[in-house]
């Protein structure tokens, strides 16, 4: 899908430029934007190095485990299908904690481990179970405490206050997560056969 969109944007751009007579601007845009992308990435080095350094301390200190304990009651309610003390629960907790701290690289393997366990719980079928979809819903609307990359981009473009979007982002992401869970519940109950449990 991304491949088509990417090629589409460029090819349509070239055609429209031919019709509009803006080919000179397109030529200029190719080279300035390529340069801008590299400048932007270099500008992001500073904050990414700093933030991932700090997060490594959190990870080594076992903050993920502490967060996991705090989340346990919530996870029990969100995933009523998972038996008590099943390994899936632990992986889901680590996945949520890593997402919260913005550790995408740590969150994904934990999420996949959780999915493996959920598949076993579901009898190894190639069909998505209720808990799998809930886990997915939480991950697609993931709550992150500090949107590091965005702050870095805002800094690169000389924002007067690069971090002032932290609170709005937290509120918006909280709304989307709650929304995701409610929608997930709605579709789950709708998918149940009528009359039966």
């Amino acid at each position: 899908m991304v491949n088509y969109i990417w090629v589409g944007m460029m090819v349509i751009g070239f055609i429209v430029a031919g019709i509009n007579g803006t080919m000179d601007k397109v030529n200029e845009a190719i080279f300035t934007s390529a340069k801008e992308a590299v400048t932007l990435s270099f500008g992001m080095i500073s904050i990414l190095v700093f933030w991932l350094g700090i997060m490594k301390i959190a990870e080594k200190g076992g903050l993920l485990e502490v967060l996991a304990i705090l989340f346990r009651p919530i996870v029990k309610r969100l995933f009523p299908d998972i038996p008590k003390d099943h390994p899936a629960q632990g992986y889901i907790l680590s996945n949520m904690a890593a997402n919260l701290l913005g550790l995408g690289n740590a969150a994904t393997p934990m999420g996949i481990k959780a999915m493996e366990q959920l598949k076993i719980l579901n009898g190894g079928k190639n069909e998505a179970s209720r808990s799998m979809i809930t886990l997915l819903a939480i991950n697609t609307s993931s709550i992150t405490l500090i949107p590091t990359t965005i702050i870095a981009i805002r800094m690169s473009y000389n924002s007067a206050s690069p971090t002032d979007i932290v609170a709005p982002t937290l509120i918006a992401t909280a709304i989307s997560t709650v929304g995701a869970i409610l929608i997930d519940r709605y579709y789950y109950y709708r998918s149940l056969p009528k009359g039966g449990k």
Partner: protein
Amino acid sequence: MSIVQSFSIWFIPFLIGFILLYGTYKKVPTYETFVEGGKEGFSIAINIIPFLVGMLVAISVFRASGALDYVMMAMRPLFSLFHIPAEVVPLGLMRTISGTGALGMTSDLIATHGPDSFIGRLASTIQGSTDTTFYVLTVYFGAVGIKKMKYALKVGLLADLIGFLASIAVISLLFYS
């Protein structure tokens, strides 16, 4: 509004301070660990270069040719009915498909409109508040061989829509009311 802004300003130093003290309490070699993690940050920033170059070039070709203006012109009447700024609609769509694609669009919007403008703040919030549904779906279900995904895609996309609309509402209310 001042409460929100001071929360945003206090939150990061507070979190960093907490992590540093917590690490010290847990006897983590803080400085060495920091350096070790920092190296990962460096490689992330370098690895992202080809993605950003590819996306930013495509987006700016599309914009410089005038094609984006036509798309905006076509969409504006429809979206202004719902008070949705047409400028961020392409970002909202891209956000569900490609994380780096959306990142390219966000930085393009911030560069064009300014980071502290309405569109700049809105793009920042949209980028931060949802994750790439198609990517998460492909990776998580693909890794364990789930073929029938049932209502998973609907849930993911509706959650993205909620995040998108919530971003518009939150930014409008907090900064511009």
